[in-house]
């Protein structure tokens, strides 16, 4: 089921098994039959570590989503609430508990907080008079959830806002905790690098936590050589640009949630003879996307322009394989063919799905508006016309395109110009407020506070220096057979990944000037290892770097890092961790103000 987690350089199945075991232990504490009431947000992330079968083995008989008023009837001994520590959820839980108390036979209530207990929430339960009803109140440290063989995410929606807008460190604390767990499983990471205020804080917390545990030496041979902590606000530009890898575009257009995507069903209708096209399914088609699927693993990180040719090659290979049946003459040969059939059918199914997805995406990418938008983005990123009002953005507001799209473009322009001229900024603000509503003053303020949208102060635009020094814009990009990470945005090399690349070779000393322009401190820490655990690297052996994006990472950045991992003379392989998988739209949305 989760074999793909062990394909990578670091076996992330070890982490998955550890969290699964923790879950079983908790379930066994509540003896007897159980019903679980889920905070709906958690079912996605939990789905990545456990199936219903695991829960059923531990006597979970019913499962509900958390809703107001009464629980549905369930003849079980235990009721377990699995929730994030959020106040509004406590109110719902207490409603459930109180109405259940009135209903009859006493049952045991438990609450499992993910990833951390919260005194604030318990206080709320106490105020509501139900705290005493819970027998077990525990926490389940699901900090980092394995998404793929080289990818971990905390799936914490609010992390960027909390860190960079509210300066609340709670999610950083969880990140540090998650890193401690990883070190407990995979050994102490000898070197820590970082850039940014939050990175500094997480490193401090880790060092402090380690000091508290010095009683027992970690005796595990270190798997990771380095940890690189990166603040999202060191690179605000990258998530704003439209991702142009296959996986990135799926996420941009349909949104990938916990490795699942929902697609319009028409293209996936089963084609059977006689159906005559009626009974088209109306429910969205849901597909899981990860490297367990061979074809997807091959194409996910390619520039979308290179996907078509792979699909057509695959189609030929599969056709040829099926043609083999005509050559199978002897019983042995037929048997051989039949034994391969399941694999071939899987490959065919996979090809059919991705051909359909590629068609859906192509409809978008070949549209006039997509082309216009991309052109403007690329102009901004290569430094053209960033200091005046863009007529394309004007058109977008005039035609009332989605607000998030407009905000994303305006922010991109601002970031590529180290802030907008006051006149330009005021103009955009006015257009946005008049077209989309004055209440968005609040959102604009948030964007300004996060540094995404701001007036140019001090007069100097530092972006060109950063762009040139870090070679963020590459004119000759090869989308088919890339030679540089800039292929993921067809020209723009993500700043964050460039920093990682330069750290590994030749080292950050070469870019001191740029590092000073980018916000926050950069630093290096060592965690000394006992001599027995020190690694002697074989010549030619790659280092393994864990890179942690505080505030979110995009699929295009992940693709770029995988590209670097696969370079023959790259010298470094990356495992990626983040507070949340994001794209420009979901990111901006997390900063928008909504009613309480």
């Amino acid at each position, binding site marked *: 089921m989760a074999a793909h987690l062990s394909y990578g350089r670091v076996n992330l199945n070890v982490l998955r098994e550890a969290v699964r075991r923790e879950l079983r232990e908790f379930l066994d504490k509540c003896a007897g039959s159980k019903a679980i009431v889920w905070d709906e947000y958690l*079912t996605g992330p939990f789905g990545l570590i456990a199936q219903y*079968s695991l829960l059923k083995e531990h006597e979970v008989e019913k499962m509900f989503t958390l809703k107001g008023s009464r629980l549905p009837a369930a003849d079980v001994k235990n009721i377990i609430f699995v929730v994030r520590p959020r106040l509004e959820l406590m109110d719902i839980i207490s409603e459930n508990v109180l109405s259940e108390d009135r209903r009859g036979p006493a049952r045991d209530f438990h609450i499992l907080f993910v990833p951390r207990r919260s*005194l604030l929430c318990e206080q709320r339960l106490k105020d509501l008079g139900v705290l005493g009803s819970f027998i077990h109140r525990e926490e389940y440290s699901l900090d980092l959830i394995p998404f793929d063989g080289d990818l971990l995410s905390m799936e914490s929606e609010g992390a960027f806002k909390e860190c960079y807008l509210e*300066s609340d460190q709670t999610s*950083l604390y969880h990140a540090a905790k998650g890193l401690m767990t990883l070190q407990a499983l995979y050994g102490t990471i000898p070197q820590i690098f970082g850039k940014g205020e939050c990175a500094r804080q997480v490193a401090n917390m880790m060092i402090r936590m380690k000091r508290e545990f010095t009683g027992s030496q970690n005796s595990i041979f270190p798997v990771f050589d380095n940890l690189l902590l990166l603040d999202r606000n060191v690179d605000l530009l990258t998530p704003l640009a439209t991702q142009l890898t296959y996986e990135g575009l799926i996420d941009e257009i349909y949104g990938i949630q916990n490795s699942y995507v929902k697609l319009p069903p028409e293209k996936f209708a089963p084609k059977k003879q006689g159906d005559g096209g009626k009974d088209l399914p109306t429910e969205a088609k849901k597909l899981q996307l990860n490297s367990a699927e061979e074809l997807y693993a091959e194409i996910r990180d390619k520039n979308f322009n290179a996907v078509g040719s792979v699909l*057509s090659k695959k189609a030929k290979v599969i056709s040829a394989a099926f043609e083999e049946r005509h050559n199978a003459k002897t019983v042995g040969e037929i048997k051989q063919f039949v034994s391969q059939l399941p694999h071939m059918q899987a490959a065919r199914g996979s090809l059919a799905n991705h051909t359909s997805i590629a068609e859906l995406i192509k409809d978008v990418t070949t549209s006039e508006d997509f082309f216009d938008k991309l052109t403007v983005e690329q102009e901004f990123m290569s430094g053209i016309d960033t200091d005046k009002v863009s007529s394309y953005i004007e058109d977008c507001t005039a035609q009332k395109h989605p607000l998030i799209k407009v905000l994303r473009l305006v922010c991109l322009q601002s970031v590529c110009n180290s802030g907008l001229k006051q006149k330009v900024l005021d103009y955009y603000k006015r257009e946005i*407020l008049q077209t989309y*509503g004055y209440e968005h003053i609040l959102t604009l303020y948030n964007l300004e506070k996060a540094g995404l949208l701001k007036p140019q102060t001090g007069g100097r635009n530092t972006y060109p220096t950063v762009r040139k020094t870090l070679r963020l814009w590459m004119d000759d990009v090869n989308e088919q057979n890339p030679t540089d990470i800039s292929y993921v945005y067809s020209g723009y090399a993500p700043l964050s990944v460039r920093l990682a690349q330069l750290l590994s070779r030749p080292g950050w000393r070469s870019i001191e000037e740029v590092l000073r322009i980018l916000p926050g401190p950069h630093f290096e820490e060592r965690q000394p290892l006992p001599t027995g655990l020190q690694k002697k690297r074989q010549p030619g052996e790659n280092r393994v770097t864990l890179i942690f994006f505080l505030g979110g990472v995009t699929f295009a950045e992940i693709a770029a890092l995988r590209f670097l991992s696969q370079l023959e003379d790259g010298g470094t392989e990356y495992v990626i961790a983040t507070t949340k998988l994001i794209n420009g739209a979901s990111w901006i949305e997390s900063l928008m103000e909504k009613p309480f």
Partner: protein
Amino acid sequence: MNRTKGDEEEYWNSSKFKAFTFDDEDDELSQLKESKRAVNSLRDFVDDDDDDDDLERVSWSGEPVGSISWSIKETASNSGSNHEREQLKNRNSFSSYAQLPKPASTYSLSSFFRGRTRPGSFQSLSDALSDTSAKSYAPELGRPKGEYRDYSNDWSPSDTVRRLRKGKVCSLERFRSLQDKLQLLEEAVSMHDGNVITAVLIFLKRTLSKEILFRELEVRQVALRHLIHFLKEIGDQKLLLDLFRFLDRTEELALTHYREHLNIQDPEKRKEFLKTCIGLPFSAEDSAHIQDHYTLLERQIIIEANDRHLESAGQTEIFRKHPRKASILNMPLVTTLFYSCFYHYTEAEGTFSSPVNLKKTFKIPEKQYVLTALAARAKLRAWHDVDALFTTKNWLGYTKKRAPIGFHRVVEILHKNSAPVQILQEYVNLVEDVDTKLNLATKFKCHDVVIDTCRDLKDRQQLLVYRSKVDKGSAEEEKIDAILNSSQIRWKN
């Protein structure tokens, strides 16, 4: 940046801005088509019924059978279809879990943290008293409420914070002096655990006067930020405003106050609330916007009452023909302008609902106004109004067509509102740039414009190409033939 025309051309054709297509010499769609074809042809002989047998079994919605979200649906409804339950049964007998080799490792997260002995320096009374067995984080679980007390009364602040961190409930009440309380807070902050910091802040908030709490937090920025976040979370608007006032963070104060309006549903009350926001210390730019927000809602309330009345009376033609889809309350300014151009276009400037009045009151730029009016009038197919919108008279009395938004956009909007070809044609002809004009004319099938433009350009080749696109035997074809046969024109090609 100044680009010459030539540069621009090159820039548009240079590879980095290439259109986003499958890069192949063949027909752009060929590759996808090919794989589609291959896929489809394979269906013929592969039995469809045991589709994906070796793959994870997936219900139609794509939820793998046995996944958590799938099972919630399944177990929640007892009336779930038999078929699905059958599937589940089958699935469980060879469940993915059973298929997996049992984990070789016996790692569990808590065991990592649990089994450790702490260094001597931390060997305090608290450790000795609690945690004698490493059974769990929360030994007090299951005990009746009365026992949520400490075993001992003299935890130091650091011990207390450490206990809180481990999720143990312990009383903070015995920290009575301000000094103790602050030490407790500092200890919590140094641990970075937001959960504990908040717990201590709740205690301080309850036991300290507002003035002292604010004064002490002002010099403790981390704790201060946690308090602000916490107050936002629990919605203690009043204390939050007091805090901002105390800290002299005026803009935040104003915005926090203003934010409240989002929670007020009643339009009249919302309007009154917005009134209280005017004059708050917003930035100069925002002040004007807030004032506009109030004025707009005030207008909308008047317009809404009036129009609802008109509509229900049923006497006004425009409302009878085009019943309102939604109330205009709380709509953005541009939407309101559209509404007013739609229902109140001809009203005199003196009324609140007249477009001209809105334009003046809110200083709506000419471009924005024209765009909105055009869209509204085109939707009503009031071509005469559209015409008037772009007609200007100069002082000699000649009329001239002028569009501040550019005629290409006029054409796009008219087309979106399905204007007839004669109308479209008229405006396509007014587009100045010849290439744009040709493109638009071709796109919207304004044959006459295409043909005349080609003739004017003396572009015989293009005309020939176009001839192949028009219907056989149509008037257009005749017209093209007439031009092609004309000896008057000196073709350039």
